[in-house]
């Protein structure tokens, strides 16, 4: 499929308190970001189990991004510090298995950063579009015939 036709599927896990509100703000401010981004709201970025990330890929995502409050600003005080360690290690492991490291990302987006949310998503979608379809972590059964 030529790059121009390829529309990546992006899953964005957003924490309820900062990033989801940031996405909302992007919307109310009429800031554009690609419709390919599907947001899943989670209570805290720390709720995201590595299994969620892998399952998103299994179910057809081409890129997975996790957004949470800035370190220090977590609604539950320390949740995102754990997220930071877990995701660093997980992403490093995926890279170790030869899976493109550009397909996964963590960004800290506060409730006030609607513009940052839109910019991050635009940038991420662009990166994943250039990478093309997720082949290395796909489940062929989930591909639509």
């Amino acid at each position, binding site marked *: 499929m030529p790059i121009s036709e390829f529309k990546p599927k992006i899953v964005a896990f957003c924490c309820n308190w900062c990033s989801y509100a940031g996405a909302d703000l992007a919307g109310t401010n009429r800031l554009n970001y690609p419709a390919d981004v599907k947001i899943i709201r989670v209570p805290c970025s720390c709720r995201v189990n590595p299994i969620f990330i892998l399952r998103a890929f299994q*179910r*057809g995502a081409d890129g997975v991004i996790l957004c949470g409050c800035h370190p220090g600003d977590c609604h539950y005080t320390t949740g995102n510090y754990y997220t930071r360690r877990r995701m660093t290690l997980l992403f490093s492991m995926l890279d170790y298995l030869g899976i493109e490291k550009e397909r996964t990302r963590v960004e800290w987006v506060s409730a006030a950063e609607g513009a940052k949310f839109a910019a991050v998503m635009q940038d991420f979608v662009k990166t994943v579009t250039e990478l093309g379809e997720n082949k290395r972590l796909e489940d062929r*059964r*989930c591909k*639509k015939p």
Partner: protein
Amino acid sequence: MVRISLDSVNALFAAIAEREALYIPTDTAPGIAQFKKWQSGMEMTERLKTSRSAKDFFFPQTENLVDFKVSGKKIDIIDPREETEDFVIFGVRACDAKSFEILDRVFLSEPVDTYYQNRRAHGTIVTLACSRPSESCFCQTFGIDPAAPGGDVSAWKREGFLYLEPITEKGRTLLSGLSALLEECPEDAVEAEKESIRGILKKLPLASLTPDAFGGGKTEKYFDSEKWKSLSEACLGCGTCTFVCPTCQCYDIRDFDTGHGVRRFRCWDSCMYSDFTKMASGNPRLTQKERFRQRFMHKLVYYPENNDGIFGCVGCGRCVEKCPISMNIVKVMKTLGEDET
């Protein structure tokens, strides 16, 4: 009987592969041999056994049974089966060849398992005699003769030649198509090889193992034996023994939600797993002791009871080699059978 020089065996493989898919055991990692589809340049392994058995050809680890395609309120049922292509498996050992007969009794008795039947009908089995049996082998315990390995065609390696003898009609058809490469030789050309193999068999450490203490009708004798507890205490509850076993035939049927439909597939199951035969009411075998007992009772008592005294083990010795804690059917037979003698 016909023969071909071992130097030309690649030409033989090429000739077979031209007509149908050919699988041979080849080294895939240090110490690991597996059946792989033959391609030019592929060498046959020197190892006695593949680490997985040959049952995969007829009863693969996972197999799709049916697809359900959901569109709106409509559900289409799709049979994903394709007609299996004809294939030849080369270099099957006597134990694995015998295991197909054990699987046949399960899958080809009514109601016939058509998935298995389809594969079975398309496969031709070329067996290879075991010139160098391993210490873990005990096929002779179950009356199997690795000097006359059976299958559709039997083969022997001796002094630079590969000798081939057709056993069934399928085997004759296979060899008749290859006659240009093969030369006729006397029927007794492999007698010396057979003698040699049978001589080694007598010296194997497990040569004296007998199944006489087991068979149908022994359920009550062994079911409540005190010995199961100590035999099973180290069992990890992994599925290694069942998955390398050529005769283990239990499977589970599961549905996978593909997002645009449902794929119903079956996969090997293991009686060693804690969720084996789990039902709404829970698991009928509560501890590892019961699960462990199930595996051995099935092979040594239940199966022969339902199948004219034939045992559900072929003595290939894979479980003996692969069990992480070295607990196996040999140990079970010796420990439980002690009381008999």
